[in-house]
């Protein structure tokens, strides 16, 4: 038994951290807050050069052939830096889907391009307001052509390859759709301005079937991606807590550091507790993901729920600790607050994941 990452894995995390510290600081993030598309192409290319886009992709497809524990640590650093790149969409979702269900031809065609950073991906499922349900999907593929409008596609404005949920005969399936003339993309603003979001309208776009049992496949994919996004949330939460602690130490009011007041100190303690619980749940989930254990659905939902709670709490109360300055555009607090609220909805909302968690709970005798 060993409940920690290895020294090699920590070394990788440190390399990623140093790269992002140097190339994706808050100044770089702020450059993408307005305009479209909202991403840092240079950072993306840097990540590709470091081989990070293919962290968990086999070497035969141009990947690094490392594992999911490593990918979790990369995610944590991206989250800490709120890196404005389509990493999750491309790596956790599209590359993962290809690895899980792609034909050999599909894998050989797409994965090397993804690892090289020349193809970006996006998942397109949502068509209306509310929890995603099978009945919500009206997009349909007939004779290899997709018609339908997806109203919120994360990284939809920068994607070259869409992973689309659509009706196909009498079931829902997942399709691969290349960006083309039949794909109409309209960027929209979201709560997280460091993230590219688009409405994507498919009008007879050529679509390749990836997996027929699309709804079940989506759940499998979401369980895996939830762990990786949870590490992004963890990284963001830690950074928000660090910012708040630093400010509480240096800001004086009433002749004392504000962190010496219990009201502030105890708020920070509660943020720490929330983060630490999430972190430990994420560690377990990283192992479950890397080893594809039978309890991955529960481990993933647990990591997801607690990481969402932790990031939302830390980002929100980081503003509170900063007081008025925390509510200025100039301070970085809002960037984390915005990201925390985007990630909370990214793969389905907290209440959906709570329900998934409870469904995955074993009988009490086995806990």
């Amino acid at each position: 038994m060993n409940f920690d990452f290895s020294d090699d894995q920590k070394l990788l995390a440190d390399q990623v951290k140093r790269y992002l510290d140097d190339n994706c600081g808050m100044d770089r993030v702020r450059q993408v807050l307005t305009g479209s598309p909202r991403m840092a192409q240079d950072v993306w290319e840097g990540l590709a050069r470091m081989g990070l886009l293919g962290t968990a992709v086999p070497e035969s497809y141009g990947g690094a052939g490392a594992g999911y524990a490593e990918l979790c640590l990369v995610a944590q650093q991206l989250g800490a830096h709120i890196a404005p790149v389509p990493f999750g969409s491309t790596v956790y979702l599209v590359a993962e889907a290809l690895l899980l269900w792609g034909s050999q031809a599909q894998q050989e065609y797409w994965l090397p391009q993804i690892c090289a950073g020349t193809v970006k991906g996006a998942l397109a499922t949502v068509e209306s307001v509310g929890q995603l349900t099978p009945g919500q999907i009206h997009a349909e593929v007939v004779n290899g052509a997709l018609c339908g409008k997806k109203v919120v596609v994360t990284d939809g404005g920068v994607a070259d390859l869409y992973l689309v949920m659509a009706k196909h005969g009498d079931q829902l399936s997942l399709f691969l759709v290349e960006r083309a003339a039949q794909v109409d993309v309209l960027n929209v603003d979201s709560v997280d301005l460091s993230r590219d979001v688009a409405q994507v309208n498919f009008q007879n776009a050529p679509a390749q079937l990836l997996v027929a049992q699309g709804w079940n496949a989506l759940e499998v994919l979401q369980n895996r991606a939830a762990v990786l996004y949870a590490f992004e949330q963890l990284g963001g939460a830690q950074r928000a807590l660090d910012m708040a602690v630093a400010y509480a130490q240096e800001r004086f009011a009433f002749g004392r550091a504000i962190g010496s007041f219990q009201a502030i100190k105890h708020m920070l303690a509660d943020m720490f507790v929330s983060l630490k619980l999430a972190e430990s749940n994420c560690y377990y989930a990283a192992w479950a993901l890397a080893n594809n254990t039978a309890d991955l659905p529960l481990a993933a939902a647990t990591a997801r729920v607690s990481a969402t709670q932790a990031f939302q709490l830390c980002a929100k109360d980081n503003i509170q600790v900063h007081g008025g300055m925390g509510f200025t555009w100039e301070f970085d607090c809002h960037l984390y607050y915005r990201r925390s609220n985007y990630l909370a909805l990214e793969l389905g909302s907290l209440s959906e994941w709570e329900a998934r968690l409870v469904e995955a709970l074993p009988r009490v005798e086995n806990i």
Partner: protein
Amino acid sequence: MDFTDTPAEAAFREQARDFIAANAPHYLAEHLAKSGFGHTNTGEHDALSEAKKWQRTKAQAGWACLQWPTEFGGRGASPIENVIWSQEEGLYSRLTGTFIIGQGMCAPTLMAFADPSHNTRLLPKLASGEEVWCQLFSEPHGGSDLAGLRTKAEKDGDEWLVNGQKIWTSGAQHSDYGLLITRTDATVAKHKGLTMFFLDMKSPGVRIVPIKQANGNSEFNEVYFENVRIPDDQRVGGVGEGWRVAITTLMNERMAIGGSIATGFPEILEWAQSAQLNGRPALEDPNVKSKLADWYVKAAGLKNNASRQITTLSKGGLPGPENSMGKLVAGNMMQDIAKFALDLQGLSGVLVDPSVAEGAARFQAMLLRSPAVRIEGGTDQILRNIIGERVLGLPEDMRADKGIAFSDIPTSAL
């Protein structure tokens, strides 16, 4: 106990209702109804000039600042009559935001401390909306420690020379006057060296810079003072009495925002009454029920508490520090409501563009604006201190800034 009108109250209500029916800007009604949190919607019409117009219309007929004496442009009405007016004004009261600081906070301070000759000149124009006032209290280095302010006023003959910076000044850009607190003596204890003035915002040396907020909007400003001259007769209260004057303003601030503070409850109720969740009406979901009930009892509690305050006022009592609880409850509630609403919207909840987002993105606007509610005008932490010390009588915290000259108070760990 009687929550209904007496015959005299009913008659007054009738009068108010008639006036509003005959004079209110009904062409704005549908826009005003769509106002979001922190935003008054007047459609294609200019918000400030519409606000001034409605205020002037009211003032001319004696329906402005109802509780003020008639010589100051008011009506000499009772607190209860004022409530009745507010109930009847309804939607149109959303036009009055521009005047709240001047009428609700500055004016009571002037009435209590300023020279009567100023008051007869200034207050009627404040009541009629002709002139707008702002409040220049907060500073970058002050924050919750309001009395830690550093803007300096030095006596120079019959004038004072002001240098320094204020922050979070709402409406500075369209204000005619400002109520300004300064430090006139840094060698005495923190609260003792302060002095209050009012100044013409067009004075030379006043520079106004809008603050871009975390939510992208700009409701507030920084105001810089460089050798700004203020005549001594614009002093409000004695030299070194500024803190006592400021307390009056702040008490009235809590009163002005106490009862009518936005909570987000009507919005989330409307949503719950119309939305579907898992294929059934959202209102049938036990989780939604539990949260709605919790939020409703808080919103109702604030409303009923405000009613009780009015009775206290009409019996000659003063607004107590327990009014601090209004914002404490509402700020957290609004943040929770926004988060819950987004949760129920799923991934579509991330959209903030009113033209594509559910409900014109009002919950998204709340999400991005509500963190400030827990900070502005006293943080949650300061409000709990006030309740603990001034309502419950608990001893104050140990103080590092007590009994020493302002200039000796530590300002950093170094």
